[in-house]
């Protein structure tokens, strides 16, 4: 049923509750292959939760979520759903890179070891090969000289760039960014955005939760404004940001722009 759709991510009526609190109240959206898809909205609007559903860090309660045509977290046989085993979930996550707001680098490993870890442990790449690749990736994010530093010896912006390199080391077909610059000092934001812009130009499919409206406008291909667990408005970034149709979008943008 999904053969006709070239969508990398497709959400159909996605619901998510934490106990009695309903965080996502039916999300429908489509991320095309190769596009940069930006999610904006006030905190608590459910944008981060939705992002975490895409690689099954959160379980969807209702609706369907597809990545590259495959159902996330479940297997469908007839009209019955079967939960995937941990190993199967892990296998699907290999193809989805994720970058966190708080970097979450492994503090007991150097930068290059952080980048090597998953290819060696998950894909069984030889250490020498992984180290060489990790060196190239660190060079790509402009940190070749920091390979032997521990995360605590790096600035926030440098840590986040290592985290991006770490995610890229698995050769993902989709990258998720969860407010990647929100925990950074203003002057360090630019370096991280440069790396992301570079990545977007290389054709990577990216879903970006962000408060960087400038980035969304320049680099984004589509933009969604979420509030209260629903998609309020979506369209081309320039259209939504400069000429919002919805009252809620207008008041949000007037505060952040």
């Amino acid at each position, binding site marked *: 049923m999904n053969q006709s759709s070239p969508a990398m991510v497709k959400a159909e009526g996605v619901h998510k509750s934490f106990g009695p609190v309903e965080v996502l109240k039916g999300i429908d959206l489509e991320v095309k292959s190769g596009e940069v898809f930006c999610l904006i909205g006030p905190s608590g609007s459910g944008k981060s939760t939705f992002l975490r559903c895409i*690689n099954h*860090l959160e379980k969807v309660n209702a609706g369907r979520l597809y990545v590259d045509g495959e159902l996330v977290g479940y297997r469908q046989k007839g009209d019955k759903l079967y939960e995937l085993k941990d190993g199967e979930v*892990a296998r699907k996550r290999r193809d989805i890179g994720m970058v*966190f707001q708080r970097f*979450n680098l*492994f503090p007991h*490993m150097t930068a290059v070891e952080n980048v090597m870890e998953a290819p060696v*442990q998950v894909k069984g790449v030889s250490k020498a090969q992984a180290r060489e690749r990790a060196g190239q990736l660190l060079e790509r994010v402009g940190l070749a000289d920091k390979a032997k530093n521990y995360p605590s010896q790096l600035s926030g912006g440098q840590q986040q760039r290592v*985290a991006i390199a770490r995610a890229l080391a*698995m050769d993902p077909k989709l990258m998720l960014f969860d407010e990647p610059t929100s925990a950074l000092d203003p002057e360090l934001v630019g370096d991280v955005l440069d790396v992301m812009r570079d990545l977007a130009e290389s054709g990577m499919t990216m879903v970006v939760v962000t408060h960087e409206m400038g980035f969304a406008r320049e680099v984004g291909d589509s933009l969604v404004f979420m509030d209260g667990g629903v998609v309020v408005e979506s369209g081309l970034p320039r259209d939504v940001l400069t000429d919002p149709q919805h009252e809620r979008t207008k008041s949000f943008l007037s505060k952040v722009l």
Partner: protein
Amino acid sequence: MTADVNKTAGPDATPPAGPEAIKAVPVRHPGRYVSAAVALFLLGSVIYAFAQGKINWGAIPEYFFDDRIIDGVLNTLLLTVLSMVIGIAGGVLLAVMRLSKNPVTSSIAWFYIWFFRGTPVLVQLFVWFNLGLVFEYINMGPFYKDYWSSFMTPLLAALLGLGLNEAAYMAEICRAGLLSVDEGQTEASHALGMSHTKTLRRIVIPQAMRVIVPPTGNEVINMLKTTSLVSAVQFYDLFKEAQDIGQNAGSPVEMYFLAAAWYLIMTSILSVGQYYVERHYARGSSRSLPPTPLQRLRAAVLPTRRPKGVAV
């Protein structure tokens, strides 16, 4: 009061060659001298009292390196190491079981910890030693078959008693360590496609070690001393050997002093080892590792050289 504060007060003031160092009269601490005098007096009286007592001090150096004592020391060390190995391995296993989502394994772990932490280790030692009353034989199919009494040697009873009891304590220490690791670490590892086991082994446990190691060092030192209980199951450790010599030579109290000296020597060595293990696991958690005592010494002697291996 002698420092000229006006020089650097105003924003326009231009200090010629850096601010002048303050030369002030330091605060006196007469309390320190008084307490030192009191402490010295008390120490002197205790030493005098012991020297006056009816203790045959000569017996201690005479037996200090006696073969039986050395045997006892080695047995104590062996028992400490093996019991701690059982304790740590069991503790990690129990902690992981306790934290697992599987309700059966977590209840089993809870029950184990409840039982072994709730009964005295001396009682456990006696129970292991006397289980022959319950099981006459031990039968492990084709591998091993024997009478319980010849299977349960003093060493085995001591190991089981100390090791399994220790596992219950280590389980709580390890659990605290595993819980101390930020959840974001597990998430990042899962997001990279790493399995639960790999995440635990490669990401969580190495970071938990920083929290686990210091109390574990305590446990090792505690274990070294607790091994003295195994004389109850006829195991010849340092304490048992010293006791036996004391009874034969008619100097029991002297031999207790001797044993105490040996225990003190061994625990001191362990404390040094603990320092280096803690330093190893501090890797990455702070910007630079604290210098080792050796490096500190070298830095003091050769002040210009930077200690090797210390990140800046």
